[in-house]
């Protein structure tokens, strides 16, 4: 049964998680955006702030309310927490009779995600499927994912670039959480409906000053998600999309988007499911130590498809087409799921505001002149 936590008691949740040894990560306002960082108390959350997003544009605005979670998703995603941007894997040291390899210790972290949205929980599940259960498991990713507490937050608003409803990934978190909060704000009453998704979640909830939810509160929370679903800024018709995209690899729209795309790679960096990496080996000046580093890579760089003789995808058209068709079509063949969760980050954080929903829809239509 869901329970109710007064908004004034939200800090009890933060402290309960910290008390269990979790590093609590959540939304924090910094540098004009809501980013993910350490949350030490509920007052660290971006109270009263809303994000206004559009293609290539993001602004934070203060509102006349004291909502804790009135914003949608920002430039960061939980990808940074588990599939970290840069990490060293091992060092090699020269020795008199050869060399020794010193692997970096397996990462250990006990983290609580405070405020993961439904789309983000889906994104984490997609990365798990690839990086833990896929053909090439990443033990360091798996280690970072092994001790995680998820506090989901059901979105009260949909952003202008949101389309989770089209992708079937939100706005309501259905699973993949320990606790799920829906913020209910009414005159004189500010509270959270708390759904319990696991035994760990139940144990944490038992430490909080909660009471059982009444049917009105459960209904109010459902209405929040319904209103948000109806307010999506974008939509994408996914019926037959995979086939429509894969059939239209020579569509003129690819040439059109190539006149706008900068191949800067921002879309892939902010995408919560993009997982490609590059390995780099370095040596020191003395020639005594070498090390291997892994970092995020983007299919928009020339180096990404560089094989003997040059880059396979030398044109921006080829790179954009690769990214979009892989994300929305090829992933189904490769991983049994779409690579897109409809979070809209690639639209907002594209410097020139290229909209994946618009491009996919245009490519999916028959060519005008055949």
């Amino acid at each position, binding site marked *: 049964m869901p329970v109710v936590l007064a908004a004034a008691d939200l800090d009890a949740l933060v402290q309960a998680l910290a008390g269990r040894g979790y590093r609590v990560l959540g939304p924090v306002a910094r540098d004009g955006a809501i980013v993910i960082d350490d949350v030490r108390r509920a007052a660290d959350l971006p109270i009263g702030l809303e994000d206004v997003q559009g293609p290539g544009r993001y602004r934070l605005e203060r509102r006349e309310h004291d909502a804790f979670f009135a914003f949608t998703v920002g430039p960061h995603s939980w990808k940074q927490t588990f599939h970290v941007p840069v990490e060293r894997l091992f060092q090699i040291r020269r020795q008199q009779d050869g*060399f020794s390899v010193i692997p970096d210790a397996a990462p250990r972290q006990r983290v609580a995600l405070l405020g993961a949205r439904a789309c983000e929980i889906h994104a984490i599940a997609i990365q798990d499927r690839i990086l833990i259960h896929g053909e090439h498991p990443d033990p360091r990713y798996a280690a970072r994912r092994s001790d995680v507490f998820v506090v989901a937050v059901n979105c009260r608003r949909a952003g202008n670039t949101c389309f989770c409803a089209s992708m079937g990934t939100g706005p309501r978190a259905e699973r993949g959480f320990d606790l799920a909060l829906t913020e209910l704000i009414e005159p004189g009453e500010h509270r959270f409906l708390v759904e319990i998704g696991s035994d760990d979640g139940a144990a944490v909830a038992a430490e909080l000053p909660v009471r059982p939810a009444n049917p009105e509160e459960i209904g109010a929370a459902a209405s929040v998600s319904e209103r948000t679903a109806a307010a999506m800024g974008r939509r994408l018709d996914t019926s037959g999309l995979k086939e429509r995209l894969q059939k239209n690899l020579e569509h003129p729209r690819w040439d059109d988007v190539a006149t706008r795309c900068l191949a800067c790679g*921002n879309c892939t960096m902010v995408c919560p499911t993009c997982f490609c990496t590059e390995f780099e080996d370095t040596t020191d000046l003395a020639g005594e130590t070498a090390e291997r580093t892994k970092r*995020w890579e983007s299919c928009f760089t020339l180096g990404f498809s560089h094989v003997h003789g040059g880059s396979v995808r030398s044109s921006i058209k080829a790179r954009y087409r690769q990214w979009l068709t892989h994300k929305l079509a090829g992933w189904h063949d490769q991983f049994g799921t779409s690579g897109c969760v409809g979070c809209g980050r690639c639209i907002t*954080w594209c*410097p020139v505001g290229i909209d994946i929903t618009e491009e996919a829809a245009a490519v999916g239509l028959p060519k005008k002149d055949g």
Partner: protein
Amino acid sequence: MPTRKKKKPKLAVFKFASCDGCQLSLLDCEDELLLLADAVRIASFAEASSGVLRGPYDISLVEGSITTLHDVERIREVRAQSRVLVTIGACATAGGVQALRNFRDVKEFARIVYARPEYIDTLATSTPIADHVKVDYELRGCPIDKRQLLAVLSALLSDRKPSIASHSVCVQCKLRGNVCVMVAHGTPCLGPVTHAGCGALCPTYHRGCYGCFGPAETTHTGGLEWALVAAGASHEDIARTYATFNAAAPPFRRAQEEQLVQIRPKEGGRG
């Protein structure tokens, strides 16, 4: 496993038309400077020592652009004496800010600046080293990034190919977790079309990138115009931004011309 060969490689630093800032990055290596001095024989480095060892050199770092006939001859000699030639900085890789002369009458400049312009013996253009001799590796920037310099030297000392990413600054910005200054603050930024290497230095301090590393691989400056204008930059601003340290790098030169074309009709209207 054998230890590295005993004979230390000879490193030389050569200067052409430049401000010396890039070669000073070598002295700026501070913590690594002694290690470097241990790993190589510094054969020629006027900023550090007046002593000069004769060539040939294993690694030559070349700073500056070619602006005189004497430069043209000297860079050929440097090339002939160098096993590996690495150009460092915007002057050496793109002609530098002094390449603005390429688009004007250099004789007129000389008349304005010098009391006795007839003493000035200069070429009409400032050109990158690679226009004159084969260059093995190039390090961009005004100035270069000392970590990249060390990375290249370390690689060459190990007979390893250096890894120098040529993608956009945006990739490095995102790896650092920065909030995009253009999307979130409306600050015009050349990051999307600029060559990485600085570690997204300016955006990390909430300033727009001004392109001192020059054009990234497959640059698409025309596409960026929309965003720069949306961020409040005028065509004059954009043209001026492209007309700095890498003004003569072909993609930035084209970008500048595209903006100038859009200004001129307005000027005509006013006149």
